[in-house]
């Protein structure tokens, strides 16, 4: 039976299930297919800290949210319209987010007493009122999947593993998506008979939705009007890896990554390890201190040195970073922030490492700090960090976070011709060489690497005499050098673009940095659509600040700084500009909800 096809602009769908249910894979496939359909999109995977928490428990719930649209969007969405829940634990952990009246597809076979109990429930959530406000679509996914694959000789366990494709098939039907890309992918990924089994499950899901009158309508989300070009879907960690690879291409330097695995930064190591054909060296060190030390060693040798980590690992790198500051060697340090303090909430997102990025070294050891704002922006931020590091001869700190690192969005892949070459040439000329003789503009010292005849010299962590680079205990030289290192960071302001305010610069100025860009921008857009005098100021550079930040902050009627911490940037802004900026802080291991931001903006605008 033909169901009406409703065209809508914007959908948020969330797949939730047990860690073993393959929700991450399902979400990724839905995303890729949706990307190919030309929608703008943003994703938010959310998984537990355990590898495999006990099946059926709330601790084991894994989710993947996709927001897709025919408009330009910035976040994975606050609240899904569609929730596909594979078991009771997943349902109860997620139902509060589903919009009133939203579509709830449940895998009914799991809604039995043994399963509610694993989820610490006293009753069947399908029957106790929990789902009253929603359009519930109960489906015997397991049974239907079993039938679809029954003659393939699969074990029960293997059969059960196909059921996420059944769910995916239903979702495809619902949003009129093409199943072909997923089939191609299944064929490439699985061996017989599992390829066939998964394809059958997928098709069975589609057909079931098509045939049985479960749904009253079908939706079409037309393609977004994206600028022309070739696109791909990309996560922040992928974009970061590609940005670093590109920086190596632009500078002509070998890329060296020193890293020790840590969630959520490990994937950068995994991605870069695949680029051996580009000469990329990835060194899985014995710990984070060795990782940063090897990176500085590689930079001493002339490579583009990068070290990636997250909170606990960043804390360990502080001492060595002081040495990079003192020896003025160009490295990029990436902190993919997660929930702290200590081991904290390792798989959750947070922005609470700004202060340690700014001040986590003993002595006066300033470092430039910048932050990426969306998954795709990690690419740009990485190239920017590398450009500043090598042109100023300085270690640079780049902040991302778990939210944008694992989230994804479509990215217009730049043409190689768009990637301006910024070749770095090591010094070879002995005439007039001194290790700490500086470029008058950037204050960069020469990068003279071992192997170059006539430039033999020695560097180290003791205070250096400016020019010669010799060890110096001279008080005046020390003061000079401490101020010079601070000045070098300040001069980067000449190499970065001025800030632009989105919307009204003279009303309520909402300030964000890093991965909260999307939610803040959306909230400001919505506030402006409601006629409020609001502007959005997003900071990529946190040290130094762009030159015009001063006038923008002082020109605003009111300043609201939104951060996923207890208010770190707001402190720096207050100190620097003596502006009575307000703080909107949230520390829950998850991104801001647009609705909450909007509410705050409304209150302040009232």
């Amino acid at each position, binding site marked *: 039976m033909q169901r009406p096809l409703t065209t809508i602009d914007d959908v948020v769908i969330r797949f939730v299930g047990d860690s073993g249910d393959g929700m991450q894979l399902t979400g990724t496939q839905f995303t890729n297919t949706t*990307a*190919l359909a*030309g929608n703008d999109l943003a994703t938010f995977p959310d998984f537990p800290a355990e590898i495999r928490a006990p099946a059926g428990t709330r601790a084991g719930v894994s989710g993947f949210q996709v927001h897709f649209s025919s408009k330009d969007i910035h976040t994975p969405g606050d609240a899904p319209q569609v929730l596909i829940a594979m078991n009771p634990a997943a349902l109860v952990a997620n139902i509060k987010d589903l919009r009133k009246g939203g579509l709830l597809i449940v895998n009914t076979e799991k809604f039995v007493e043994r399963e509610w109990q694993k989820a610490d429930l006293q009753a069947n959530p399908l029957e106790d009122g929990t789902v009253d406000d929603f359009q519930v679509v109960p489906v015997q996914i397991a049974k239907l999947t079993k039938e679809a694959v029954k003659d393939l000789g699969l074990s029960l366990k293997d059969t059960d593993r196909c059921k996420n494709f059944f769910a995916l098939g239903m979702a495809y039907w619902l949003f009129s998506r093409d199943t072909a890309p997923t089939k191609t992918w299944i064929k490439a990924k699985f061996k017989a008979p599992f390829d066939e089994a998964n394809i059958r499950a997928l098709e069975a899901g589609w057909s079931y939705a098509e045939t049985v009158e479960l749904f009253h309508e079908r939706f079409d989300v037309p393609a977004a009007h*994206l*600028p*022309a*070009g*070739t*696109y*791909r879907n*990309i996560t922040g960690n*992928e974009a970061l890896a*590609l940005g670093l*690879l*590109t920086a190596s291409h632009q500078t002509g*330097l*070998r890329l*060296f990554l020193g890293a020790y695995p840590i969630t959520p930064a490990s994937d950068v190591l995994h991605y870069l390890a695949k680029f*051996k*054909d*580009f*000469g990329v*060296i990835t060194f899985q060190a*014995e*710990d984070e*201190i*060795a990782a940063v*030390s*090897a*990176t*500085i*060693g*590689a930079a*001493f*040798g*002339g*490579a583009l*040195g990068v070290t990636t980590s997250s909170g606990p690992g960043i804390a360990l790198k502080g001492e*060595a970073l*002081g*040495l990079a500051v003192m*020896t003025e060697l160009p490295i990029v340090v990436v902190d993919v922030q997660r929930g702290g303090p200590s081991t904290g909430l390792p798989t959750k997102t947070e922005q609470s490492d700004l202060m340690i990025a700014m001040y986590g070294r003993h002595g006066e050891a300033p470092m430039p700090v910048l932050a990426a704002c969306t998954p795709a922006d990690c690419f740009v931020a990485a190239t920017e960090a590398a450009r500043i590091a090598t042109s100023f001869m300085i270690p640079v700190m780049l902040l991302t976070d778990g939210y944008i690192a694992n989230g994804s969005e479509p990215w217009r*892949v*730049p*043409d190689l011709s768009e990637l301006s070459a910024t070749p770095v*040439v*090591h010094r070879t000329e002995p005439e007039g060489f001194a290790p700490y003789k500086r470029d008058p503009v950037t204050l960069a010292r020469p990068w003279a*690497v*071992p*192997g*170059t*005849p006539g*430039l*033999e*010299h*020695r*560097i*180290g*962590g003791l205070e250096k005499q400016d020019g010669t680079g010799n*060890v110096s205990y001279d008080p005046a030289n020390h003061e000079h050098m401490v101020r010079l290192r601070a000045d070098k960071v300040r001069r980067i302001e000449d190499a970065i673009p001025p800030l632009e305010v989105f919307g009204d610069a003279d009303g309520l100025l909402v300030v964000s940095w890093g991965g909260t860009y999307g939610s803040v921008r959306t909230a400001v857009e919505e506030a402006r659509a409601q006629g409020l005098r609001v502007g959005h100021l997003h900071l990529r550079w946190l040290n130094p600040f762009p030159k015009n930040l001063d006038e923008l902050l002082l020109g605003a009627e009111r300043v609201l700084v939104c951060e996923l911490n207890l208010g770190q940037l707001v402190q720096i802004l207050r100190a620097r500009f003596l502006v009575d900026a307000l703080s909107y802080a949230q520390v829950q291991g998850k991104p801001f909800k647009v609705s909450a931001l909007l509410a705050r903006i409304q209150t302040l605008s009232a």
Partner: protein
Amino acid sequence: MSQHEATAEEQPTPSYTKKDFMSDQTIRWCPGCGDYSILSQVQTVFAELGVARERFAVLSGIGCSSRFPYYMNTYGFHTIHGRAPAFATGLKLARPDLDVWQITGDGDALSIGGNHFIHVLRRNVDMVLLLFNNRIYGLTKGQYSPTSEEGKKTKSTPMGSVDHPFEPCALALGAEASFVARTVDVFTTEQREVLRAAHEHKGTSFVEIWQNCNIFNDGAFADITDKKARAEKVIFVENGQPLMFGAEGARKGLRLSRRLELEVIDVTDDNLGEVLVHDETNPVLAMLVSRLKPPFPVAMGVLFRTSRALYEVGVHHQLELAHSRPGAADLRKALLGSSPWTVAG
């Protein structure tokens, strides 16, 4: 990457003298410190190695000993306490063309730096690692170190230390070292020989050098450096040679007991065959001789040497292999990923 590596083989190496390796920096060690002798041997040996001066990179951690790079007219990097093996690993990985040497102290290598020490050994990065063991923290003015003998009274152990010390060579062997040698600051000839062997070996060449700190641990090795006693108290091991020592006229040798322990015998023509012959490729023998302590003679020379894969070679081999594959290193392709799509203008 290519800019430097390419030049590695270009010119013939100039011939050097020791002076070419002396930097213009004033030496800041205490008069009489054992470090002077080591510096002199290293400078002498560098001049002989046939390596262009600019190819040398000398790295160190923190400590009196770690001041070493400043005095060498080569590339040098005085890093942070204990981490030099990691800096050296990064440098060597990025620049396999360099001749990397690391200088460290017993505190730097075995206290704060113990982890990097064991990891560089197991990875077998091709470099020389010289540990100046004075059994004390010199630079911080005399606390006991992980090689100080039990009961040692120092500023931090007024009633004597209760820490059992490491035997650096044994630790290195346990950590998969491929080359382990030992020498003494004042044994200049033997020291230079060991340095040459260390340089020649492919892999991480670990050399423990007993070094006198005449300010905070004076005479720690006086027992064996004393010229007269030396023959009785030191056994210079040599590959393929019986493990023998003793002053003139008193030939002594080492034999393996049934309990698998070493014992000293007076060597006669009859029992010469019972004396163990040093086999530097045998880890058991290396472990046995490295742990010799008075009343046994202490072992000096190359205790162990084995050939195994080099870390940086393995890494670069993979890079080359990957690079040689069809369609390799295509940036555009890498950026596009596996499922790009096109939006028409």
